[in-house]
């Protein structure tokens, strides 16, 4: 099947644990997904549910002493799990580009933005200085920066948040990576700029056929950009489907609660839905049973699976546990 050939990244049974007072606790607990080229995969969930842990496991940006990564992250013939620092440096920036949350903080304040983008080229291409400069200006053009040549010599503090994020994007795509990981790329931007940045990401993806992993907690961003969505809760994927199915036909109680918490202008309800409680902290995360059960206490215990698994309920629509079959919101009685 040519479907198989298009797979860029194949994550299987990924367990990433952090050491807390001498013991490891898994923040990503058995994650599996695939990213195909030309696809935007969104990973959504509340803060603390393990989204960023997945990112840092893929690109090896974790503290090696206090982190334990197990499982498989296959990129081409390479298993990225526990790759050496040197090999990671060859992959990062070259095959996998990264975009971070806060463009105010993700650029070095003492370096010209052009030089910071050129730095990515320095380690992955054999361009000379002039060629790198030309390429950076070309990239600035591509990401829609006005006066790209003048921009090269600017410092981060001279640019607005939106422009800085464009610099970060230029940096991420400088070496034409096949995979782009965007970790909350629009969270720190105001709404009008958010839309521009998302459009830019989509444009770049179309031009380059790359696959994008989009980490976000903003379902609006997901609806606007993603092709596939994985919903995460407490270190596990609880529901996975294409974006249309997920928004029109969500099944897992957590997904339904999340969607129910979005303010609707045409809704006839006065009160916004609130999911009770919070994501359990890493140390107190339940390791058996349905992890979301504690936040929907009105659902009887026997509705949950003892060891909840991801079930393919429809083609390409996966839901964890069986409690969705009988789930109802509390006010629905």
């Amino acid at each position, binding site marked *: 099947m040519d479907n198989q050939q298009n797979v860029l990244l194949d994550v299987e049974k990924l367990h990433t644990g952090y050491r807390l007072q001498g013991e490891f606790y898994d923040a990503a607990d058995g994650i599996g997904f695939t990213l195909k080229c030309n696809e935007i995969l969104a990973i959504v969930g509340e803060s603390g549910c393990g989204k960023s842990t997945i990112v840092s496991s893929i690109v090896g940006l974790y503290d090696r002493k206090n982190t334990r990564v197990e499982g498989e992250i296959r990129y081409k013939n390479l298993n990225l799990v526990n790759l050496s620092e040197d090999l990671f440096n060859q992959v990062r920036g070259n095959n996998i580009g990264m975009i*971070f949350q806060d463009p105010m*903080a993700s650029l*070095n304040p003492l370096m010209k933005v052009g030089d910071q983008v050129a730095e990515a080229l320095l380690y992955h291409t054999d361009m000379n200085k002039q060629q790198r400069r030309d390429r950076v200006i070309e990239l600035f053009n591509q990401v829609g920066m006005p006066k790209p040549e003048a921009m090269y010599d600017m410092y981060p*503090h001279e640019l607005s948040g939106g422009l800085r994020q464009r610099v970060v994007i230029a*940096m991420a795509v400088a070496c034409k990576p096949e995979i782009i990981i965007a970790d909350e790329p629009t969270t720190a931007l105001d709404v009008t700029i958010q839309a521009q940045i998302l459009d830019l990401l989509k444009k770049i993806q179309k031009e380059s056929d790359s696959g994008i992993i989009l980490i976000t907690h903003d379902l609006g961003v997901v609806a606007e950009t993603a092709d596939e969505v994985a919903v995460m809760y407490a270190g596990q994927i609880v529901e996975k489907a294409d974006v249309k199915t997920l928004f029109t036909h969500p099944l897992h109680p957590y997904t339904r609660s999340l969607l129910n918490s979005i303010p609707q202008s045409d809704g006839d309800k006065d009160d916004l839905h609130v999911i009770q409680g919070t994501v359990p902290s890493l140390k107190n995360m339940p390791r058996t049973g349905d992890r979301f059960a504690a936040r929907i206490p009105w659902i009887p215990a026997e509705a949950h699976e003892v060891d909840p698994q991801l079930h393919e309920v429809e083609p390409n629509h996966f839901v964890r546990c069986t409690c969705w079959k009988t789930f109802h919101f509390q006010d629905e009685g």
Partner: protein
Amino acid sequence: MWKTVLRRVLIMIPQLILLSIIVFMLAKMMPGDPFTGLINPNSSPKEIARLKQAYGLNDPVPVQYVRWIKNLLHGDLGQSYIQHVPVASLIADRAQNTFWLSLLSTIFLYGIAIPMGISAGKHEGEWQDRAISVFNYVTYAIPGFVFYLLGLWLFGFTLGWFPISGTVAANASGFWGVFFSRLQHMILPAILYAIIATTGTVQYLRTGIIDNKVEDYVKTARSKGVPEKVVFNKHILRNSFLPIAAFMGNTITGLLGGSLIIETVFSFPGMGKLFLDSISQRDYTTLTALIMIFGTLTLLGNLLSDIIMSLVDPRIRVK
């Protein structure tokens, strides 16, 4: 760039004027006058009054101030009450000695403090960091004069490795002979000073490295595939040097100010010792001139710090 400098220089002018007025007022308030020590017991009050009139001491205070400033600008700092030589030549001699001693001290200071700060920051929480912390606590807690005296006693008196006072041996001859003799006289005070003065630099550098290590732009650099060594030197270290650069101007102009305590302990004829001597001998003209010089140096140091900062940190440059 030059605009920043120009703006800062312009700001300095009123500061200098204010400083000179304060120094002048202090000098006027001190007991005695320029004839103190010159007059023999047989001089009549009439004679003193005549001299006062002749030297313009009966003029209105503003007139005297303007005359003082004029002389100052011509490099005339007055006569020393005690040594009866022009203050300017007295200071010139001492400033030279102090400059070389301070230069050597500063080289030792940064030579010791920077590697220590980097090592502590890089190995946060490991044995290197803990050892350096202990060193910092100890050197910070020991009063300078105790430490200098101990060093003087151990390396000067007991072991006899270094001379214990002065700037040059009496029997030194030839350029290199004098050079090495001077160096030999300066090494012990310079090293002792450097060891005990490291705390600030080490701590600033250590904290800077620890803070910058986890900054987002460092993560960005790593995500570009920049090797760890380059990430450290180019991204983390450069940003961590900013707080040290902020003091560098004052450190450099401080070279001329000298250190009161170390020069006194080592009987080293420099600016600090001159300052202390002129206080204890009530040599007011010298004292006034020194205060004016120290004040000006502080202002210049701030200016230099600002220039250095604007060179290393683009956020500070004024357009």
